[in-house]
C-alpha cells in the first residue's frame, strides 16, 4: 500500500476546524452507552486545553435516530434542529459541535438541504416561530468533536502520560479505526480525509504512537444500522455485518478498536459477546476479545485519566488487557466503586468470553 497515495487524497479533503468557542450538543444515546465519554471531552477541552465549550442544558435530542427509523417526519426534525441552532446563537456561539455522528450527519444533511432549497429553510423558520416563537442563525461552522480532538491531537500529545505503544514489545499498538458512516460517507467534504480513507481517527492514532490497520472490510457497516437492530427479527442481519468485519480484521490481530460514533463502539463491543455465545468464536485478545473504545476514552487513556472515571467498566469486552499492554497504572479494585460505596452485584460472567 502506498501511503503517499492516501496523503494525496487527504490533501484534497482538508476541512477548516475553528480552534475555540464551541457550542456542545450532547447525544441522546451516547450517555447511556458510554457515560464517561462526553464528560471526558468537556474535561479535556476545558482543563487540559483551556478551550471555551458551552454545555447548555436546554437542548434536546436531534431526533435523528427517529428520523432514520421512519418514526418522525423530516420537517419535525428540521424544526427541532432549528431550535438547537437558536439555542446556540442565543448563548452567543457560532460553532455547533454535535456529540453524535448521526446528529452530525443529520445536521450536515439539513444544512445542505436548506442550502439547496432555501424555501424549505423559510418554512422551517415559520414552523419554529409558530411553535416556540424563536428565530435561529445557521452555525458558522458545523464540526464533530472528533474533528476537534483531531485538530488538537498534538496538544494532547504534549500532555500525554502514555503512548499507544505495547510496553513489552515496544511496537506500536495495532489499532482498527472505524468511522461512523454518517460522518463522511454521505458528504465526503464534511469529513477530514474524505469518504474512502478518512483521516480523523487515523490521525489521532498515528499522533499518539499507534499504527492503523487497513483491513479489507474497513469501510463496511459496524452492524448498528437503526432499524436493523431495533426490530429483533432483523438483528441477525446487524450482527452478520459485525461478524464479517471481525472475520476480516482477525488476521491483523488488532489490539483495540477506536470509533467516533455512539453506535459503532456499542455494537462492536456487545456483538463480540453475542458472537462468542452463539458461535463460540472470539476474535483475538487471546480470549478477552478486542476492546472497542470511543476517541474520548482513548484520549483520556493517553492523558492518563482514571479508566474507571472514563466509564471503561461499562464495556462488555474487558479493557484491562489493553491497559496492561500500555503499561497503565490503575487500581483494579476501583472498578466497582461509585463515589464511596462499592457496588456489590457484579455482572455475571459470560460462558465463552473471558472477562476480568
Amino acid at each position: 500500500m502506498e501511503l503517499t497515495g492516501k496523503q494525496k487524497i487527504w490533501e484534497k479533503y482538508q476541512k477548516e476546524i475553528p480552534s475555540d468557542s464551541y457550542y456542545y450538543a450532547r447525544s441522546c444515546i451516547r450517555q447511556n452507552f458510554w457515560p464517561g465519554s462526553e464528560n471526558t471531552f468537556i474535561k479535556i477541552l476545558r482543563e487540559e486545553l483551556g478551550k471555551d465549550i458551552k454545555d447548555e442544558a436546554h437542548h434536546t435530542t436531534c431526533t435523528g435516530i427517529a428520523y432514520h427509523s421512519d418514526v418522525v417526519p423530516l420537517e419535525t426534525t428540521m424544526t427541532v434542529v432549528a431550535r438547537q441552532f437558536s439555542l446556540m446563537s442565543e448563548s452567543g456561539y457560532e460553532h455547533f459541535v454535535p456529540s453524535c455522528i448521526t446528529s452530525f450527519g443529520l445536521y450536515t444533511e439539513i444544512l445542505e438541504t436548506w442550502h439547496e432549497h432555501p424555501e424549505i429553510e423559510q418554512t422551517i423558520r415559520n414552523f419554529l416561530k409558530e411553535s416556540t416563537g424563536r428565530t435561529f442563525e445557521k452555525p458558522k461552522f458545523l464540526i464533530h468533536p472528533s474533528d476537534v480532538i483531531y485538530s488538537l491531537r498534538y496538544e494532547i500529545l504534549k500532555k500525554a502520560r502514555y503512548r499507544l505503544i505495547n510496553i513489552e514489545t515496544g511496537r506500536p499498538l495495532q489499532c482498527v479505526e472505524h468511522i461512523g458512516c454518517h460522518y463522511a460517507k454521505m458528504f465526503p467534504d464534511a469529513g477530514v480525509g474524505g469518504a474512502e480513507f478518512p483521516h480523523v481517527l487515523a490521525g489521532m492514532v498515528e499522533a499518539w504512537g499507534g499504527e492503523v490497520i487497513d483491513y479489507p472490510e474497513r469501510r463496511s457497516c459496524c452492524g448498528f444500522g437503526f432499524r436493523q437492530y431495533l426490530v429483533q427479527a432483523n438483528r441477525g442481519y446487524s450482527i452478520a455485518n459485525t461478524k464479517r468485519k471481525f472475520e476480516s480484521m482477525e488476521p491483523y490481530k488488532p489490539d483495540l478498536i477506536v470509533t467516533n460514533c455512539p453506535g459503532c463502539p456499542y455494537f462492536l463491543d456487545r456483538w463480540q459477546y453475542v458472537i462468542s455465545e452463539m458461535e463460540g468464536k472470539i476474535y483475538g485478545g487471546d480470549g478477552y476479545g478486542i476492546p472497542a473504545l470511543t476517541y474520548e476514552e482513548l484520549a483520556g487513556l493517553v492523558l492518563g485519566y482514571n479508566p474507571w472515571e472514563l466509564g471503561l467498566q461499562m464495556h462488555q469486552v474487558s479493557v484491562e488487557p489493553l491497559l496492561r499492554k500500555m503499561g497503565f497504572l490503575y487500581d483494579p479494585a476501583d472498578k466497582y466503586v461509585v463515589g464511596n460505596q462499592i457496588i456489590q452485584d457484579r455482572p455475571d460472567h459470560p460462558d465463552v468470553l473471558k472477562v476480568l
Partner: protein
Amino acid sequence: MNFVCNTDMTERLKKKVLIIGAGIAGLEAAVQLMNLNYDVEVIEKENFYGGHVKQWFKTFPDFQDTKPLIDLIAGKPDNLNIHFGSVPGFAEEQNGIFHVITDKNLHIHADAVLISTGFELFDAHRKEEYGYGIFNHVITNADLESFFQNGFPETGKLSLRFGFIHCVGSRDAKAGNLYCSKVCCATAVKQAIEVRQHFPDSEVYCFYMDMRMFGKQYEELFQQAQEKYGIHFVRARLSEVNQNFDQSLLIKVEDTLTSKPMKMSLDYIVLMSGMEPSVSSQSIATLFGIALDNEGFIKVSKPFIAENITEKKGLFVAGTATGPKTITETLNDARSAALAVHQYLNSK
C-alpha cells in the same frame, strides 16, 4: 495511402495549413494535405509524434506492432515540419488568415487550421474507491501497455490472478462521463490475451457491464479469449477494492447472473480507463473561440455530414478531439478532414 494530384494547383501561391497535434490524426491529415501540395506545419506539445498509439504495445484485433504502423502513417517523417514541445499561446483570425503565436514565440500564418489534439486517458485516481495509486498492484490499461513494452515489475508469484475492470471513467455518472469510450472492451480482451501469453498459468477475469465488441473480428477475438485462453468473463460492476492481509487485492462485486454478492482476491487489477476530452483541446477551443459539446469534446458543426467542420470558417477538427474513436475511424476522420480543408481552400 499516398496519391499525388498534379492539377493546375502548382502554379498559384502554395496555401498553408496549420495542424495542432501530431497524433495519428494530425500525421495522417498532414501527409494527405502535403500530397495535395499544401504547405503544412504541425505543432505538437510532446517531443515525439504518434500520440497515444505510439505508447501502445500492440493494436487489436490483430496484435500488430504500433511503431511500424505509425511509421507507415507518417511516411517520410523528415519532410513533415513538426514543432515539438510547443503549444499555441495566442490565435486570431483576420479575413481568412489565422495568425497563431506558440508559447516558444513562433509566429505562424495559415490559411486553415486543423485541430487534432486527441484525447486524454481518464485519470484513474478519480475513482478513489478503486485504489489506483493507493494499492500498488492496481494499474491502468496504459500502465499494462508500458509493462508489456518495458517489462513487468518483479512479481515473485508465477500463477497470477488478473482482474480487468471495464468502464473506468466511462458510462459512469460518478466519474462525470456518461458516454461509452467504445475501444476499452476490445482493448481489455486483447490485453487479457497478452497477459495469458505473457504468464502462461495466470488466471484472468474480466468484469464487464456489457461486452461491446462491435468491430470486425472483435467478436472472434472475444471467443478466442474464452476458448483458447480460458479467460473468464464475469458480468459484474466493481464497487470497491481493498487489500488482504497477504497484500493481494480483494474486490467486491455482485455476480449479476446469480444475483449474489461476490468477492475474490486478485494479484493485479487493470483499470480500463476510458477516453476523456484532453485539456489541451479544451484550451485551444477557448483560444479559437469555438464551443465544446456537453461531454467536453470539440463541438462539430453538423453530425454525420460535417463532422470535421467547426462553427468558425477555416477551422477544422479531426480525430478523437471530437469523441472516442478507434484507430481506423481516426484515420478515416483525418482523411475526410484533409479533404474538407482542401475543398475550403479551393473555394476560398
